[in-house]
């Protein structure tokens, strides 16, 4: 189909618009601090240690693989640090050092570098790594037991475990405002909802992440949770709960929006997001896993190449 929009070209010379990978990484790191800093206050120095370990090891792995594969050193673009940061955001503050290092190995080396580096990874590296370590050492990442030694002034039970095991009424005590302000246990950077939202909104306005993906992801969660809730209000918690617990917010703003594993066109982005959201709630409510975000993101990463086939016909075909 012909569209006049697509034909709006301007003429040479073209200049660099100043944006680059490093500035993109910097901005996302900045936005993530909004959630990580409150997390560090909540969990203390251990959390700072995990974050530092994660970022440092991610950078080292990237350096190492650059060295082994004799490619230019690419840590300067900040992408490795970003992967480390996002990975750390999902971890509980008590994660031992070797689990962090293994995780960043899978994220940086297996998830990204062996596919040829930035822009070529089919799956979100941090999500991939998180799934692998969770699968291997489930007890380390069971937030209830991992954070047992912390004293909080709120109910220190991972909300999703409650909803999964005891149904919707078990999570009634969780006030949505409390959840929003981080009064729940979880990953270092994934509980302080308001920080994640502010960071995400900042990134959307700066254009570093696509608003279409985040918004449709949240919409998918909302719609699916609402559906389940209407179907059986006893068993399945409402949409507000699902939107503010677990990895939902970090998933919507930081995980699903990763560039090379998400679609580039409008309609595919919407499908991608909604599918991810709906799958998340499905996994949480009827699947095995406690939190569905990680697997939902992997699945939408997987269908992404197919979604990307829905695209406007390019100009220049033919003649």
């Amino acid at each position, binding site marked *: 189909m012909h569209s006049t929009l697509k034909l709006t070209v301007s003429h040479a010379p073209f200049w660099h618009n100043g944006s680059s990978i490093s500035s993109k990484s910097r901005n996302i790191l900045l936005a993530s601090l909004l959630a990580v800093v409150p997390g560090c206050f909540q969990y203390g120095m251990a959390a700072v240690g995990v974050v530092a370990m994660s970022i440092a090891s991610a950078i080292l792995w990237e350096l190492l693989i650059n060295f082994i594969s004799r490619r230019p050193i690419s840590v300067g673009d900040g992408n490795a640090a970003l992967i480390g940061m996002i990975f750390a955001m999902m971890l509980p503050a008590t994660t031992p050092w070797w689990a962090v290092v*293994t995780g960043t190995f899978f994220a940086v080396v297996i998830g990204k570098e062996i596919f040829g580096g930035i822009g070529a990874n089919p799956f979100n590296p941090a999500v991939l790594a998180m799934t692998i370590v969770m699968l*291997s*050492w489930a007890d380390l990442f069971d937030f209830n037991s991992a954070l047992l030694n912390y004293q909080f002034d709120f109910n220190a039970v991972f909300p999703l475990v409650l909803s999964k095991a005891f149904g919707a009424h078990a999570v009634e005590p969780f006030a949505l405002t409390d959840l929003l302000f981080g009064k729940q246990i979880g990953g270092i950077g994934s509980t302080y909802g308001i920080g994640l939202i502010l960071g995400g909104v900042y990134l959307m306005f700066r254009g570093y992440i696509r608003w279409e993906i985040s918004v449709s992801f949240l919409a998918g969660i909302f719609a699916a949770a609402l559906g389940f809730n209407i179907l059986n209000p006893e068993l399945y918690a409402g949409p507000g709960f699902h939107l503010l617990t677990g990895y939902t917010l970090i998933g919507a703003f930081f995980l699903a929006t990763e560039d090379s594993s998400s679609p580039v066109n409008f309609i595919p982005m919407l499908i991608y997001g909604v599918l991810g959201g709906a799958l998340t709630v499905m996994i949480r409510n009827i699947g095995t896993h406690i939190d569905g975000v990680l697997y939902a993101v992997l699945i939408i990463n997987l269908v992404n190449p197919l979604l990307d086939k829905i695209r406007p016909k390019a100009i220049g075909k033919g003649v």
Partner: protein
Amino acid sequence: MPKTIVQEFTKGLWQELPPFRLVLGLCPVLGVTTSMENGLGMGIATTFVLVGSNLLISMLRSVIPQKVRIACFIIIIAAFVTIVELLMQAYTYPLYLKLGVFIPLIVVNCIVLGRAEAFAYKNKISSSMADGLGIGIGFTMSLGALGAVRELLGHGSVTVWGDFSYNLLSAFPSFQPFSFMVQAPGAFICLGLMLCLINAIGD
């Protein structure tokens, strides 16, 4: 240039090492290598079928008509597979249980049919035997190696028929088994990385 029997034998150990060099017969490689013992057992079973079917096909190659050769190969291979299946049930029952569906599936293993078609049908008995044995041992080694790596990382220890065992925990007491390795995704990724290693060495 015709190869000597020794050459026919040794080529299966590196040049045509299945499944790494000939990227064939991957299903059992992925499916049964959760432990070294399983890998070796599967490899030996496959070797038996390979040698037996290579021998028989090579013997009968003048009798089998070209048009139904595949059908004949399949019958011969299937017969050997069933024999292995029965023997394993009778004498190594625990292993049989672990390998499960993969034992009957030796019949569709591309390596076995491939050797029959590409080699045994065209060569004399002695070289066919050598070829089958070489490829079979190569296959067994590969499976065993993959199984060893996965078992060691995934369980923290390696045990083969109770006689040989090595426990990683004794060397590194704080090691926590990396159970991802013994699960399905770990199988693919581990095989992929080993293939990469073999390629890197081959280069």
